[in-house]
């Protein structure tokens, strides 16, 4: 018996009971569409969250001194009197020379006191350079940010966080005013717009100075962090390796820095959302198993309705395996057609959701649609086996006696 004939005969049999067939197709289609829609929602949420993180800059790499990966290294270092080699402005400049990076800025942090006239306030001094504004996506309130220029030059200028500016100057403009920060004086170039908390750090309560000026205040040549923006979103890992190589060469062959990429964070969210999506798919897939039970029920009815027909097929020479194949194919056709209808319904639903909520990028992942179809067909076959075996095992004489 040719496979084409098996399929044709199965479809003819399904065609004979249009209502029953269409109800069953609907049941399977709903299951498949549920998988498609729910995974589309999960995928939409995942894309939304990762895009939000990417907006913060997946191209951002943070360089810090010491090897965070080497557990216990710190303690060992203490015992033998070693400390991690510090990062310096020269390290920063060395990284900036790489073609794989677009922007590099050092970061020095420390506590300080700022005063203007009689007003005084404890703040965090943040020493950095011009690219910081773009790297952190900060917005200016008034005036301008630190000017680009030589990192080593300790210009007596500063930019105020929004809270600092308000508390020191109230409604007056701080532009061009001279502040005292610790022992030095500096002129206000501008103020930042309100930024809020970013990564647990409140920029509004800082005073931003050129890195060399901050180093002078804290009497250090070290740099706390170096922020790097990779030139290519896909080259973040290569950039990371290059930074490590550059610093290693400068630090006497010792790999004594840690480079954190934002990919790692985004990847974690990615994983979490993928798990949620898979969970949703699994829940929806349960409905496909239920549809499988319906298939079994309908196929059992079909076998008893067509008992005489099975007897006849046997009389004209059908082997048991052929009868089995016919009924299994019928179950498989049901689930395949239902699955195709379900994919279509699901796609239409995803389209509607996208139209209704354009913010979220709903899209059913291909693996979800494919596995929904796979599960539907598998469930049709698994639940079709019992009825098909029952048909194949019928005794031809008894079967022919039924009408």
């Amino acid at each position, binding site marked *: *018996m*040719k496979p084409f*004939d098996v399929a044709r*005969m199965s479809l*003819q*049999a399904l*065609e*004979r009971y249009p209502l029953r067939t269409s109800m069953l197709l609907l049941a399977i289609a709903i299951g498949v569409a549920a998988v498609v829609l729910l995974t589309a929602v999960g995928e939409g949420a995942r894309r939304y969250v990762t895009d939000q993180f990417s907006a913060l800059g997946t191209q951002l790499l943070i360089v810090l001194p010491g090897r965070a990966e080497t557990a216990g290294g710190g303690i060992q270092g203490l015992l033998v009197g070693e400390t991690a080699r510090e990062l310096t402005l020269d390290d920063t400049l060395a990284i900036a020379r790489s073609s794989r990076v677009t922007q590099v800025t050092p970061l020095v942090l420390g506590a300080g006191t700022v005063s203007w006239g009689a007003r005084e306030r404890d703040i965090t001094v943040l020493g950095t350079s011009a690219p910081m504004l773009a790297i952190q996506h900060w917005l200016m309130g008034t005036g301008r940010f630190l000017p680009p220029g030589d990192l080593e030059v300790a210009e007596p200028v500063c930019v105020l966080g929004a809270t600092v500016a308000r508390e020191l100057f109230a409604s007056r403009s701080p532009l061009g005013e001279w502040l005292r920060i610790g022992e030095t004086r500096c002129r206000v170039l501008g103020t930042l717009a309100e930024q809020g908390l970013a990564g647990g750090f409140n920029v509004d309560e800082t005073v931003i100075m050129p890195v060399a000026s901050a180093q002078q205040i804290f009497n250090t040549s070290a740099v706390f962090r170096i922020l790097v923006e990779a030139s290519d979103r896909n080259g973040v890992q290569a950039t990371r390796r290059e930074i490590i190589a550059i610093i290693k060469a400068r630090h006497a062959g010792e790999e004594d820095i840690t480079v954190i990429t934002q990919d790692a964070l985004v990847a974690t969210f990615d994983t979490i959302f993928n798990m949620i999506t898979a969970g949703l798919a699994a829940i929806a897939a349960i409905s496909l198993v239920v549809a499988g039970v319906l298939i079994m029920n309908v196929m059992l009815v079909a076998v008893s309705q067509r008992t*005489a*027909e099975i*007897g*006849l*097929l*046997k*009389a*004209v*020479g*059908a*082997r*048991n*395996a*052929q009868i089995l194949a016919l009924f299994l194919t019928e179950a498989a056709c049901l689930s395949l057609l239902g699955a195709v209808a379900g994919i279509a319904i699901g796609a239409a639903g995803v389209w509607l959701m996208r139209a209704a909520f354009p913010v979220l990028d709903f899209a059913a992942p291909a693996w979800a649609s494919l596995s929904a179809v796979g599960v539907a067909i598998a469930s049709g076959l698994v639940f079709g086996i019992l009825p098909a075996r029952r048909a194949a095992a019928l005794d*031809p*004489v008894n079967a*022919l006696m039924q*009408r």
Partner: protein
Amino acid sequence: MMELSGICREYAVGDETVHALDHVSLAIHPAEYVSIMGPSGSGKSTLLNVLGLLDRPTAGTYRLKGEDVSRLDDDSLAAHRQQHIGFVFQFFHLIPRLTALENVELPLVLTGAAPRARRERAAQILESVGLKARLDHRPDQLSGGERQRVAIGRAIVMQPSFLLADEPTGNLDTKSGGEIMQLLEELNRSGIALLIVTHDPAIGGRARRHLSLRDGKIVGDVSEAAA
């Protein structure tokens, strides 16, 4: 040739054992025309089912064309039925959703014959049973006599050596019953052995050899002298 020797077929009905066939020995020769008659429950249908390999004997030996087929498995029996035996039933047993042509084609479909060849063959068979104009009619669009012609077409499409008919006219009026008998006898004259189970003496009387059954035993086996 069909040779039965000491064939028994027993059923368990509740606690009782029914001897539907009780040590039947019999030989059917090629191109014979045999009627099998007897009262209800005499075992005539069981005999036909055993001869047609739909049923297995519980004891005895059945040789079909020299081969012992009494202990074959389901699939081998199916293969032998396909090759050697055609069935005609009282209730036609056509598949309602298939056209006359498709019903006749069915045994060829099961063998995996090429669509074109089998279609031509089925059409040719239907023409030979007088249904040239009814190829695309479904059973519910055909009269009883026409349905039985389709069923006969299906029975002979594989060119069997034996045609087994169980009350082939039982569901037809006298006129179309007569026509069906003529068709079957025509086929018999062309060389197919014809075995008819009936309880209608007018039908049974037309055969050249008459088997009578009672309580699972052959109680009469009369052959007419060749005319």
